[in-house]
């Protein structure tokens, strides 16, 4: 324990320079701004800014992107409360009670709750991240290849369980991502696969264009399809935040939801949206006035925002300790680590401890900065809704083009980005989730390397796949993760037939 605190102290010390603090501040501001703009998700905001970090020091790059992730999760609530338009998918739950509060003249209360619930929920998530990821990483470093392979399978199959009613589509997208990952040289024998003589594909399809294409351009093409030149003018909202003592009554809601959000965030594919829906439901059950939920219950806003921000810390646990992203934004962060030649996973704690602990420290600082920026700019952030789409969309396009070009200075990458943008648009249109594709692409190489190492470690035997207890447990969880939605579907059908 003492070691953790001393490393953490060193992490805080690393933050104590103007450039780094400015980068955290910039990340948080960009994140809040991006999150507040409807149509820009946290993953899109991080993906768009990712290429700008290419020439930065890896630690500074990661902490800036982390600041964006944290800021964007809170930013989504601003427009959800003020104009009933969630800036991010996870903020949809915030709008359930936030907007009715704003309509009844309590906009300041709703905005204040969302800000402080986000801050404290995020801090809870960060604490859990620190105290869980370190022991988990020390266990994971002793994993055998078969255990790692089974762990990746488990991570990918839970995506299907969390895929909702159309879980089959989520599963097909995971496999599509894994297949895309097999394009290029194979990691064991350097044999070219599916490249049709193209030198641009030797190293596989590059990660950054896939991320920007699927998350940014796909979303943008989809928005353009629904674009109406007659823009809706929103009423100007101005408000005053209540005093700190007002929030004390919500302490248990924030604590419960922050913890729940963090736990849910750990599961790959779950993310902030599922966390906020579940926390909202739990809080409604705990409430003495459940009928108030949906009509302006402060606890509803607190639950949604605390869980959403708590999920950030949760999503970082498997990313840092196992190299498996817990959310689509975490998958983009894996991409960021990779372009800086860092291997996400337990080795990060032994090879780059200064980066890990500075990141932990930066998460605390980012939440404090977010609270300060939220209080100081409370009336400013609401105005992002007045940015005309005729300016916003073209700028996101040129930023995406520039981003996909800048990393390798290769025009082919821009073409890849555009192709994945069109794929992302079609996937969104026909309700095939894009995030599992990214998870598949991110985990593909790790899985292939570990799978190929199983017989090497086992001296020619594949027994590692079935005689190591942890591997068996992980495989069983994976089977359960796929079987559960099928069973659930059957049960629902049987219930419907009986009714």
């Amino acid at each position, binding site marked *: 324990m003492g070691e953790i605190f001393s490393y953490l102290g060193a992490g805080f010390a690393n933050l104590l320079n103007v450039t780094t603090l400015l980068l955290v501040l910039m990340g948080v501001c960009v994140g809040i701004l991006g999150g507040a703009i409807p149509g820009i998700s946290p993953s899109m905001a991080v993906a768009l800014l990712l290429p*700008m970090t290419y020439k930065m020091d890896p630690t500074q790059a990661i902490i800036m992107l982390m600041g964006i992730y944290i800021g964007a999760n809170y930013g989504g609530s601003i427009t959800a409360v003020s104009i009933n338009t969630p800036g991010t998918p996870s903020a949809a739950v915030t709008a359930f009670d936030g907007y009715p509060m704003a309509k009844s003249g309590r906009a300041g209360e709703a905005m204040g709750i969302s800000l402080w619930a986000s801050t404290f929920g995020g801090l809870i998530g960060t604490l859990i991240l620190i105290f869980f990821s370190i022991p988990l990483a020390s266990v994971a470093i002793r994993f055998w290849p078969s255990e790692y392979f089974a762990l990746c399978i488990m991570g990918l199959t839970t995506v299907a369980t969390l895929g909702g009613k159309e879980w089959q*589509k989520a599963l097909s997208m995971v496999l599509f991502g894994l297949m895309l990952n097999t394009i290029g040289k194979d990691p064991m024998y350097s*044999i070219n696969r*599916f490249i049709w003589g193209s030198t641009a594909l030797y190293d596989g399809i590059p990660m950054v264009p896939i991320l920007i294409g699927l998350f940014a351009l796909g979303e943008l093409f989809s928005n353009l399809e629904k674009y109406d030149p007659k823009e809706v003018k929103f009423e100007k909202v101005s408000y005053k935040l209540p005093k700190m003592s007002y929030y004390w009554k919500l302490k248990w809601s924030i604590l419960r939801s922050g913890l729940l959000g963090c736990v849910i965030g750990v599961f790959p594919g779950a993310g902030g949206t599922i966390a906020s829906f579940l926390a909202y439901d739990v809080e409604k059950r705990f409430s003495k006035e459940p009928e108030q939920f949906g009509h302006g219950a402060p606890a509803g806003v607190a639950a949604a925002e605390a869980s959403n921000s708590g999920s950030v810390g949760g999503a970082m646990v498997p990313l840092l300790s196992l190299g498996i992203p817990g959310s689509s934004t975490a998958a983009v962060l894996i991409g960021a680590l990779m372009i800086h030649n860092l291997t996400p996973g337990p080795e990060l704690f032994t090879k780059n401890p200064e980066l890990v602990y500075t990141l932990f420290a930066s998460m605390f600082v980012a939440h404090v900065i977010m609270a300060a920026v939220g209080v100081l700019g409370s009336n400013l952030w609401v105005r992002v809704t007045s940015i005309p789409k*005729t300016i916003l969309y073209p*700028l996101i*396009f040129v930023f995406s083009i520039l981003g996909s*070009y800048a990393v390798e200075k290769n025009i082919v990458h821009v073409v890849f980005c555009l192709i994945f943008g069109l794929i992302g648009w079609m996937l969104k249109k026909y309700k095939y989730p894009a995030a599992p594709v990214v998870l598949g692409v991110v985990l593909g190489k790790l899985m292939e390397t570990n799978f190929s190492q199983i017989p090497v470690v086992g001296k020619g035997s594949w027994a590692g796949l079935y005689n190591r207890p942890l591997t068996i447990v992980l495989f069983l969880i994976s089977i359960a993760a796929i079987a559960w939605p099928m069973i659930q*579907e059957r049960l629902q059908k049987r219930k419907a037939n009986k009714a």
Partner: protein
Amino acid sequence: MLKTLGTFLAADSNFLWTVLIFAALMGLFWVIYTKVPRLKPYRGQLLVITFLTLFTLLLFLCTFSFRVKGIMKYTTAATMPRTWCALMAPVIVLVFVSILNGTCEPDKPFRRWQLSLGIAALVFASVFLFEYIGYYLSSAIFLVVMMALMRERKALRLILVPVCWCLFTYFVFDKLLFITLPAGSLFAGLGI
């Protein structure tokens, strides 16, 4: 037979043929889904899963063309792609069944798809122009045309946005991050 077919499809010189066969099959399925009244409301979703089926099949066949080295004792370069293809097969069936038994909602009609596709074409043109007229001019033209396509009529915005963007990219990317953006062969040829 699989090896012959795989070698044909994976050959560098046959890439165009592979794309054409793929496109023709997609077109054929589009016709089938349009003609069958029960399938028509799910045409888009079915086309996505058909794309995945053909993609899986293509990858599976191409694995037969991979070189096998003497050192490959336990796995080959084809092991993992074939594993994913094998797993994809039942998943594709599950998706087809879920679409056909009405678990999935019918497709939503396209709205302003011409704008999205037009802008995609504009991006392609802009990327193509990178090398000739350089990044700055190409992106400025892109911004003006896209804003015009989105019916932006304020002249000041049409001028200021591209100018500010070019200044921003020049100072941030060129001066701050030292990422030099293409100046364009045309200007290089003119000695500018």
